Each structure stands twice: as C-alpha cells, then as structure tokens.
C-alpha cells in the first residue's frame, strides 16, 4: 500500500464517525431554520411557511412577551451571578480541607462531599423532596425542637428561589470542584512552605501568602469559564425543581425555551429564535473570555 493510499484509507476509517458527529452536532444548527418559519408540527416547513424575521420581531414587539423575556433574563443573570459571586467557595473548601491533618477524616469528608456530584438532578430532587417534605427529617426535627409550629413548605415556596437553587448546586458540585484545587495544592512546592514555617509563619499566613496565591491561576480559569457559560445554566436542575409556586423566579433561559415549546399549543419557532440568540451570544462570550484569558495568562482555555 503506498503512503498516499494509506493516508486516505486511514481517513476512510474515521469517516463514519465524522458523519455521525456531523449529524449529532452540526446538523442541529440547521434546526435554526425553524425560527424563520410558522412551524406547526406535524406539518413540515416549506416556502409557504417562511415568515422571515417575524418571530424575532415578536420577541420585542409583544409587550407581554418582552416582559417575560426580561424576567427570564433577570433570573438567568441572578442565578449565574450568585454562582459567580460564590465561585471562590470550592477553592476555600479545598484549602481548609487540606489543613485537616487526620488523613482518614480528610478522606472521609472528601468522599462524602463528592458523592452528590455523581447523582442525577432527579435524584437530587428526590433527596430534597424526601428530606424537606412536610413529614421529612428537617420539618420533623424543627417541629419537635419547637422552632416552628407547622411544617415549612420548602420546595413550593417562592421565597429565595435563586439562592436555594445555588445551595443545591453547591451541595451537588462543591466537593467535586474542590478536587481540582486539591490537586493544585499538592503541586505546590513543599520547600516554599517549609521555608515559611522555619521563618515562623502561622498556618493562616501560609494559607494567605502561599496556598491561595498558588491557586489563583486555576481560580481565574474557573471564573472565565463561569462567565463564558453565563447564559447557560442548563435546564435540568430548574426543570425538576420547578412548580407552580416558584415558576416565575426559577425559569432560566434554558428552561424558558423548553417551556415555550412544550406548554399550551407549543411555540417551536419562538423557542428556536430565542435559543438561537442565546447560542450566538454564548459563543461570543466564549471568544471574549478566551481572549481575556490569553491576555492575562498568556494562554486561552479553548
């Protein structure tokens, strides 16, 4: 087999997978055409259903819809904003976890706090439901301690929805996110810390002057990734926690587009139009954050 033939044969080996990738990742972009049609399934789109930018104009021209989009954007920004504001939490979690000298205890804490990362949002909701329901552990304990008279409806309350969603997100992810920092901590030069100890540095001084500065580059990347994903909270968490009481403040963009398409008669074109705008803004955000990262650190993360 000549070298040339071989290079084509090798390409042919991966061709089926490239085609699969094209269908699974690139073809859905074609789905954006639905935003330019009056699409009502099961009737397929055709030149007759083409309506141009009607649905994009509809977002801004319809005051009710505009207010809705505004509310959803506020929710999205609030949830992402809270996550961003507390994005240091896994780092601090890792720093102080590393301070625990008793190794079995440290291992135990790490194991237990990482577990929630590996269960689905449905299971998280099930856990929440079972523990927080009117006869769940939390209400039972609070009632018997006399802190409250009657059970609190934690999951159906519309108070502090943004913050509670952050709490669940942190419950699920913080332990896992800390692992990356723990790895970074173990990479810190031991001699630096020894030298500081000889000079009489206290543990807080070592943490503040050595550990945390060494973790900042990692933290910076995490912040940039957070910013790049600012509009993409995903829908699963919010979907499983959504109910009639908290719907107004829990709907983030990803959930909103799903709700528009599935509730009532289902408005696929409008949903697609909003999805499309979101995707474009997200890619732009990725470019911006990557550029910032390249300027600051000398390398991007893409």
């Amino acid at each position, binding site marked *: 087999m000549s070298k040339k033939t071989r*290079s084509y044969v*090798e*390409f042919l*080996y*991966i061709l089926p*997978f490239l085609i*699969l*990738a094209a269908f*699974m*990742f*690139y073809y*859905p*972009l074609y*789905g*954006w055409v*639905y*935003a330019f049609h009056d699409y009502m399934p099961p009737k397929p789109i055709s030149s007759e259903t083409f309506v141009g930018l009607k649905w994009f104009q509809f977002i801004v021209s319809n005051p009710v819809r505009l207010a809705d989009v505004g509310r959803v954007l506020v929710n999205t920004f609030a949830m992402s904003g809270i996550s961003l504001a507390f994005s240091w939490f896994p780092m601090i*979690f890792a720093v*102080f*976890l590393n301070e*625990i*000298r008793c190794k079995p*205890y440290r291992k135990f*804490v790490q194991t*237990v706090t990482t*577990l929630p990362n*590996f*269960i*689905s949002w*449905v*299971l998280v909701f*099930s*856990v929440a*439901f*079972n*523990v927080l329901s009117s*006869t769940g*552990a939390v*209400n*039972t304990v609070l009632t018997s301690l006399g802190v409250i008279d009657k059970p609190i409806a934690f999951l159906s309350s519309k108070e502090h929805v943004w913050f509670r969603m952050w709490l669940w997100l942190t*419950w699920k992810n913080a332990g896992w996110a800390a*692992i990356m920092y723990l*790895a970074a901590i173990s990479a810190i030069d031991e001699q630096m810390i020894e030298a500081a*100890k*000889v000079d009489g540095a206290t*543990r*807080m001084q070592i943490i503040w002057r050595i550990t945390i500065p060494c973790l900042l580059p990692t933290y910076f990347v995490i912040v940039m990734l957070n910013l790049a994903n600012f509009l993409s909270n995903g*829908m699963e968490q919010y*979907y*499983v926690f959504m109910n009639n009481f908290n719907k107004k403040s829990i709907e983030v963009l990803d959930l909103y*587009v*799903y709700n528009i*398409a599935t509730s009532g008669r289902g408005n*696929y074109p409008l949903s*697609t139009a909003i*999805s*499309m705008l*979101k*995707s474009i803004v*997200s890619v732009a955000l990725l470019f911006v954050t990557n550029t910032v990262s390249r300027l600051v650190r000398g390398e991007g993360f893409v």
Partner: protein
Amino acid sequence: MTTRTAARPVKHRNPMDRQGLGDKVISVITYIVYAFFAFVCAYPFYYIIINSISANNLSERGKVLFWPMEMHFKNYTRLASIPGLLDAAKISVLRTVIGMALTVLIAAFLGYMFTRETMWKRKLWFRFVAVTMYFNAGIIPWVLCMRNLGLNNNFWGYILPMVIQPFYIILCKTYCESVPRELQEAAEIDGAGTLKVFFRIMLPVIKPILATIAIFAAVNQWNAFQDNLLLMPNRRDLDTLQYKLWQYITQANSLKALVSNTTNSNAIMAGMATAATATAIRMSVTVVVVLPVMMIYPFFQRYFTKGIMIGAVKG
C-alpha cells in the same frame, strides 16, 4: 553567692510541628465545619435508606430519623410488582451498557486515529470534532432535528447523540501521544496495519484512561433524564428509571394508583407496617436508582484526579 539552677532539659520540639493558639483554634473550627459539610451530604442518603426499610406507617409520619425502626424489606420485594418499573430498569441498564461500550470504543479509536500523522487532513478532522464542545444549537432545534433523523421514540435516541464525546477523544489522544512511538513502529515493521496496531498494541496500552472514561460515560448514561423527556414523548416502554422516579415524585396521582393497586386501603387504615405508601415507594425507588452509583463509587474514586488533571492538558 548565687547558685545557678541546673539547666533544665529543654524539650526538643521540631519547629515544623509548632502550633500557636490561633492555629489550634483554626484546627478545631475546621474539624467542626467539615463534619457539618459531611453530615449535610451524607445524611439525606442515610435518611432515605433507613426509611425505606422501616415500618411504613412510621416513615410516613417522619418518625424515622436515626436508625431503622421495625425493619422489613417488603418495600423492595414489592417493587417488582409495580407495573413498568422492571422495564424501566432494563432500559436503564441497557442504555448504560451499550452507551458506555460505544462511547469508550469510539473515544479510543478516534483518539488513536487522530495521532496518526499519516492520515489525510488529520488536524482538520480533529478540529472538526473538538470544536463541537464549544457550541450547541439549543435544545428545541436539537429535538426537531433528532426527530427528522428518526431518533425520537427510538432507543437509539439515547445512544447515538451521546457516543461521540470530544472531551473523551481528546483525553485518549493525549494518552496515545504519551505512548512511546517505537511501540507502534515496531509493530508496523512486522507488517501490522493501522487497525491491527490499534487493536493489538494501543488498546491494551491505553486501558487506564479507558477505565476512567468508561466510568464517567456509564454514570452519564445512568443519570440521563433530559433525552427521555425530550425525545421519547410517545414511548412509555422506553422510559428510564430516572424518568419513572421523577414521575413518582411529581405526579402524585400516578403513585396513588400504584398504592391502591398494590395493596388494599384497609391495610393502610389499620396502620400496617408493611402496607405500600407513596412515601415508601418513592424512597425505595430512590435507593434503587442511587445504589449502582454508590456501589461503583469507591472503585472509581482513584480516577478522579487523573480524569480532571488530564482534562487540563489541552488537545
């Protein structure tokens, strides 16, 4: 005349171990705070497990907090008789096994092929796959397109969209690049072709990274819920365990029907400890869904750091 007191023996202390009062206080606080974190993460699971094996009339009223009371396993033996639950379990297991196997194989093969410098336009194809990590069309356009491809109401809708994972492919590529080139060259001199080198030489060598990928892919498949919700509107026989559990929690009616089917209401009135209740079903199904993840968890813990660290190396 002053008598000098004999020099007291100085207790030798390693300056490394010196802890000031402030340091000790921090230690104590740290231990307590992390005990709290561990409790918050572990207790909910413990709570659900002990409730699922306690007397149902007690768990119904939130009486079981610390240890199982009037232990029984009727809730679990009863699960088999809940219509549709066994089928859902089959679907979940099937998609996990098939999905994991295909994901790992494709990641290994593409990861290896993308290191073949002889391949036509290798870099272009690698970028073609890798760049898909950074954009997506949005769920509704995606659903509409999957419909066009006939993947809705079809078991393969669980598998095909998830088998090509650019991230895993990059992991494999990086790993393959770290394998000494001589290994492949030796085989090639002996006349082995591209595929033979892959199956005979590379696949066994890159096993460690494949183990990591296999576990993550399996957990992803097992936990998947959205594709069930979005792609399978008319095929209740394709429901997964995750979806069933979600239905049991949110649609009280579906559970009520189950409860009255599987037991008679007199039993509940009599406060029978083993009569089916909505709470009992919910909790035992939760345990069944969470257990596989918990079982493999200790085994794959050692892959965590590896998985994350290699991911930090760019492709």
